[in-house]
């Protein structure tokens, strides 16, 4: 008997996978439903996708989300890259530094979001895109940091020694060996930070000013006013984009290991 096989684990696993994926499939299926009432199926149609493309407030929200995610993910990845390079070797206080870097992961998001709101209001910072960018950068750092660190941990220091042995200065070694070998990790980190920012609802909900709604904030307020086929369609788009990006980062992380 195979010690790795346990009775019913297969059946339960398949049921759990169904639990995780059926709602997603249902949502996507309904986004192709022609019927206005959103839950009664008539026939397949892509008309709601056409409708959301024409909706200017959705367009504006999508644009805001995109700009926000690109800026926050870029800044977070840059900061995380520098931090990962500096925590590569053990030193006094490395544990403390890593705790701070991972702080956004363990704190409840709603608490961080309202606390940031209080700070911005106390400082008189104007709420809107810039405020959101700052907050998103902060909580995206660990998402970018972890894949970069994982890549660095899996990278033997011998490659850098070899480069220096072959006459490359410290800077040239970084440029010709460290960076190219680290690159998949950096891209994976960027992608995860990007997805995290793109999907964020709570922080944006508290920090968005008038006219700077993001897509998740738009979806939330739309759901509040009732289910509609347009929401199904945007939600489906958001799902597909996230899935593609995460799959991309997964493959980047495994590249040339």
């Amino acid at each position, binding site marked *: 008997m195979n010690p790795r096989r346990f009775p019913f684990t297969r059946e339960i696993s398949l049921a759990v996978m169904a639990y995780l994926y059926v709602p997603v499939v249902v949502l996507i299926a309904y986004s192709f439903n022609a019927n206005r009432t959103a839950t009664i199926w008539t026939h397949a149609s892509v008309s709601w996708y056409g409708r959301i493309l024409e909706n200017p407030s959705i367009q504006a929200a999508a644009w805001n989300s995109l700009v926000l995610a690109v800026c926050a993910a870029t800044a977070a990845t840059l900061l995380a890259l520098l931090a990962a390079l500096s925590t590569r070797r053990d030193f006094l206080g490395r544990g403390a530094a890593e705790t701070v870097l991972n702080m956004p992961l363990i704190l409840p998001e709603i608490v961080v979001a309202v606390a940031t709101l209080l700070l911005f209001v106390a400082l008189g910072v104007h709420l809107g895109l810039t405020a959101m960018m700052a907050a998103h950068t902060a909580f995206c750092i660990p998402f970018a940091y972890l894949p970069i660190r994982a890549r660095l941990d899996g990278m*033997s220091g*011998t*490659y850098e*020694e*070899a*480069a*220096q*042995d*072959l*006459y*490359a*200065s*410290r800077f*040239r070694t970084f440029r*010709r*060996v460290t960076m*190219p*070998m680290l690159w998949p990790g950096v891209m994976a980190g960027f992608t995860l930070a990007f997805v995290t920012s793109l999907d964020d609802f709570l922080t944006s909900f508290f920090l968005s000013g008038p006219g700077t709604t993001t897509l998740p904030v738009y979806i939330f307020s739309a759901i509040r006013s009732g289910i509609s086929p347009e929401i199904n369609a945007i939600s489906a788009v958001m799902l597909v984009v996230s899935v593609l990006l995460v799959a991309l980062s997964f493959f980047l992380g495994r590249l*040339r290991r």
Partner: protein
Amino acid sequence: MTDASVPPAVSIRNVSKSFGKGIYTVPVLDDVSLNIDRREFFTLLGPSGCGKTTLLRLIAGFETANAGTIAIEGQDVTAAPPFHRPVNTVFQSYALFPHLTVEQNVAFALVEQGLAREAIRTRVGEALEMVRMGAFARRRPAELSGGQQQRVALARALAPRPRVLLLDEPLSALDLKLRKEMQLELKQLQAEAGITFLFVTHDQEEALTLSDRVAVMQAGKILQMGPPREIYERPTHRFVADFIGDINLLEGEALPGGGVRLGPGAVVPLTCATPGKVTIAIRPERARLATVGEGTLDATVIHSAYLGTAMLHKLGLPDGSTFLLRQSESSGPPPETGSRVGLTLPGEAIRVLLQ
């Protein structure tokens, strides 16, 4: 061989190195000095943890010595970073850059040296031909076998024409057959390239086969340094004798009037500086069988093994210890297991060892 007017390829003076701080300090090298001549194939031999790899890393510049100086062809490099030292390394793990092709790996140092494109192309071609890897220029390291990676690592380290090539157990990852092949190739390559090789290994056979000179290291010190034959035949230390090849170690007592007594009535004609307890060593092939009572000692045959060109006998000595004896086929019929034999220990084959 050594010309006083030409500085040696590598000169190490009183180098010490320890790792850690305070009470956690672990000494790794203790006041090591040695000279390596130009075009010499020099080997650092010792068990793991003896400091041989650290010494190599100090020469390459990956570590900094706590004390002492290191010079390469007369130029002091003690404080120089690795990229300012005219030496290249073949790493134990090869450390071929996985994101570059074979060609780009070999060209790496040449680009850093600022060579022209054409010159780089020629030199890369030459280096790859030298290790017979020309056909693999466009491959990635991951697509090569262990032996092929080994060759590329050699070509990459030789392409910039270093003064000294440092080899850190380069053959340890290969299987036995491939290792034998590569040993021959290495020796050939050294002759062709005319470069000083500093080789690090824990494999005594490899060291004896390849080297012009060997330094045997233990616990951060060089115990004995010399040509392979000298190390093998005239070991000075118990550790060296034991580490290299099969050897019989016997405890005895040096007599004031000359000679070493091994047991009641068993005296070998040797002169020792001071009387007292000594350890003597003799190789299995240097001892001879004799008729009972006519040898230095009497012994019992415990077990015999056929080796193809010789027999290896395991003998029991009167004091209870065992003795290995290698009997060549031409020296008469082998004794039977359990029989009593005489054992002759020729004085010129015996070494008196330092502890």
